[in-house]
């Protein structure tokens, strides 16, 4: 069993992602959590590059690590009027905490067992040279309606977000 460079990169990326994700949940400062989240996003982008899905990786960096992260940081800034210490604590409901932990563990075991024992029909191939072109063809071809719907969704979400964040005018 030889260990290739590719494998090492995967292990490194996976470690970064898992550590960063754990940080998102475990850190007590919400700003630290947000930064940890950006790290996780970047790690996931690395996984995409490794899976020769460069376009998705770029989108991941631009949308997640760029836009969404900025949004989250801004939101944190808007809602934290006092100190940011102890802003990201666990819920005080111990029963629910334990139940959530058990549930998560059970889910992990179930999924892990299923994945581990499944024989996937892996097809060895290099993959398409022009993946972005194929994506473009699909977006403008078979999936054009879904594509347009997603566009409308984004528009609606932007308008909705503005209205919600601006707050309804006081009619009194």
């Amino acid at each position, binding site marked *: 069993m030889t260990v290739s460079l590719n494998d090492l990169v995967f292990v490194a990326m996976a470690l970064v992602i898992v550590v960063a*994700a754990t940080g998102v949940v475990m850190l007590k400062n919400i700003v630290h959590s947000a930064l940890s989240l950006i790290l996780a996003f970047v790690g*996931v982008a690395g996984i995409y590059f490794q899976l020769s899905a460069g376009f998705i990786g770029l989108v991941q960096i631009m949308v997640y690590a760029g836009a969404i992260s900025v949004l989250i940081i801004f939101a944190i800034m808007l809602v934290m009027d006092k100190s940011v210490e102890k802003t990201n604590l666990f819920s005080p409901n111990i029963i629910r905490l334990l139940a959530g932990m058990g549930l998560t563990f059970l889910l992990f075991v179930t999924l892990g067992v299923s994945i581990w024992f499944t024989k996937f029909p892996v097809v060895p191939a290099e993959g398409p040279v022009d993946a972005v072109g194929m994506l473009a063809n699909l977006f403008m071809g078979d999936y054009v309606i879904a594509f347009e719907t*997603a566009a409308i969704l984004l528009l609606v979400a932007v308008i909705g977000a503005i209205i919600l964040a601006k707050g309804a005018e006081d009619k009194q």
Partner: protein
Amino acid sequence: MIGLTHYLLLGTVVFCIGLFGVLSKRNAIAVLMSVELMLNAVNINFVAINKFITPNDVTGQLFSIFVIVVAAAEVAVGLALIISIYRHRKSVDLNDFNLLKW
């Protein structure tokens, strides 16, 4: 030798961490961030399965883009909601929001 199984296991781990965050954090923004983790886990699965099982196709990548689009919209609306709630209640602690009970 790293294969599909490992990518999927990575997705599972990230998903479970996200789920735990959703169920246990008291800050609404943290919950939203955990949801983003879960969505990323799903995207990892999409892209990995696309790569290993249907390598000559890009449908998995296509769907991961749709997921990213929806996630972006969700984050925008979700954060707007949190800000709106914060205006009224001066709090983002989910434990304070229990109006809809018996």
